[in-house]
């Protein structure tokens, strides 16, 4: 008997009393009733609580904001599908400072390690928990690029902000490589005291474009 058959057969034997699967009571909240302003306010509050830096700007000002955040960066990476218009302020299209990661020409881990910052979009955000979800779409790129550089600049469109988690997960295809981000990397392993910045990007800048 293979281990697989053996284990499945053990489980069936363990369930000889034929327990019934109950109806799942889904009386928890399925949606929030906040309007856009309230959603943005809540998201900002939560992100700041996690020690992320947040700016709420009109969409037209996103390029300037990105440019100013990248001011001190010697280099930064963007996924190939990132809105080029948003990088207009960096004054560096095709220069050596901006690196583009693409499926056809992915950067090596060592290359990513030498890059100061990364700029990505996002799939959806959850205001109540201060969570930004990346799903590997073209404007977010593969997981490694938003992980290895120490400074992550992430653009969230107001339309992509949901109130609570069930709404957000409802918009995501779970079979994609999904990363849920709530603030910069952190640990509470020493005396339960939260410390921001361990292995993931130690600096998280969120630009909310409305």
């Amino acid at each position, binding site marked *: 008997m293979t281990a697989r058959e053996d*284990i499945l057969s053990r489980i069936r034997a363990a369930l000889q009393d034929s327990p019934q699967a109950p109806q799942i009571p889904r*009386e*928890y909240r399925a949606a929030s009733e906040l309007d856009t302003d309230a959603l943005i306010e809540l998201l900002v509050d939560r992100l700041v609580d996690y020690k992320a830096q947040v700016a709420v700007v009109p969409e037209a000002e996103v390029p300037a904001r990105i440019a100013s955040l990248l001011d001190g960066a010697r280099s930064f990476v963007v996924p190939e599908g990132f809105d080029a218009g948003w990088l207009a302020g960096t004054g560096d299209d095709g220069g050596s400072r901006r690196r583009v990661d693409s499926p056809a020409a992915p950067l090596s*881990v060592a290359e990513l390690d030498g890059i100061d910052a990364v700029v990505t979009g996002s799939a959806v955000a959850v205001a109540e928990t201060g969570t930004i979800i990346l799903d590997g779409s073209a404007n977010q790129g593969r*997981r490694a690029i938003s992980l290895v550089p120490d400074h992550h600049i992430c653009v969230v469109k107001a339309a992509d902000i949901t109130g609570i988690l069930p709404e957000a*997960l409802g918009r995501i295809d779970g079979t994609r490589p999904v990363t849920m981000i709530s603030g910069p990397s952190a640990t509470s392993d020493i005396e*339960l*005291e939260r410390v921001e910045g361990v*292995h993931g990007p130690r600096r998280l800048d969120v630009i909310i474009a409305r």
Partner: protein
Amino acid sequence: MTTFLGMPALPAFGSGNLFAGESFPTAAHRELGNAQLRANLGHATHTIRDKRQAVVAELPDWEQLRDAGSAIKQAVMARLPELLEEFETNFTARGGVIHWARDAREANEIVAGLVRDTGETEVVKIKSMATQEIGLNEYLEEQGIGAFETDLAELIVQLDHDKPSHILVPAIHKNRTEIRDIFLREMPGADPALTDDPSVLAMAAREHLRRKFLTAKVAVSGANFALADSGTLAVVESEGNGRMCLTLPETLITVMGIEKLLPTWQDLEVFMQLLPRSSTGERMNPYTSLWTGVTEGDGPQNVHLVLLDNGRSAALADEMGRSALHCIRCSACMNVCPVYERTGGHAYGSTYPGPIGAILSPLLTGIEAEENNSLPYASSLCGACYDACPVKINIPDILVHLRSVDVDSKRGKKKVPSQMDVGMKAASWALSSGKRLGLVEKGLPLGRLAAGPDRKITKLPGIAAGWTQSRDIPAPPAQSFRDWWAKEHRNAGGAPGTPGTPEAGPSRTPSPDTKETPQ
């Protein structure tokens, strides 16, 4: 375990790091003697308790989420075979490879074999209860494969050659100064000027592990959830070490207990609200990663999952204890447990400490394994764990159930019954009749004699000595309530409600006297 071809397999107990090598009271006695440990634990558990309470109070639908979480897990147990097959189909269809392991030894061999196939001799690891349970690191070490823990607390414990004492914060028993000293002693190249500031220590860990992350070819992880309808795995973490391991290496090997399934993607919305608030007391943990088999051009291209039984089928076979498998390893129960708070995790012996460990370990190994039968008694049954459990595992009821399994397992086996056996039998006789209890109570004045002039009993023999080691017993009264009631009643001339006649019906009370008589 032996199986015969063609015979249905019976649920089997697990092996690995699941055993209390010494009885809980013995281990607890030692741990209680460590004042530093108690101070560290008290500080840490109180901090996290308060944080948890605050974020749970924020949610208007916390109880509804708990109800849903509990029902979903109940459904998972009821439908486990079909859900495992569904998960396997979906995970495999997307390029993942599934392995099944009956027990710890089999799981270790599978992992070591997969690492060997890559030609590598080092792996980076994400904190995982399953791999601790099977003793994977030690096994890999024996096989010449170095396993590097990357979670900060696991790193601390590994550097100190210690054992974890908490499932979420494995180094909860150590304070910052002790951790600084470990780093200075064990971390190659540690800055001699290292301070005990937690952020400085976290940075030292970052420096220490950065190279490993960037060059590792193989990672080993556990999983918090597995979604049957999509074949998706999830890891919930904080530091980003998980993302490093799950993203950068070429090969990813995950070890997961068969009970970690959730039926659908939608169910994740329940558990991702329950878990972070219950574990670290945060609205959401910094990072959660989800992967479904292999994604071309993103992350490991060689993805394995080892599905582990190791006693879970045996736990499942216990109808009363089955729901212990609902556990999502949040650690809320240990953070609120007054026993854990004072003894720490090492006293439980097993990988799983605290209230959940006190039921899970004996369920996985069988009550008769080593000293695991002492674990269900490691509780005052105060019920704080049940209230804190996000999936509503009724830990106190299961503790009581396992105590009865323990008592029953010894019936007829002992040559000489224990004092407890004798006492319980005698008490059963005396307490199953009002008449007999009344007779016993006639002996109360004897207790007064024993108490002496200061009206307290300060030393009892045998098992009751445990009581008088730190508590007096008041001198018994001269007369039981029952006796008083009967006499008052006779004086009042009512119906005979004497203690000697249990068949006598309820009787009208006389006006009770209001003063005790000074003795």
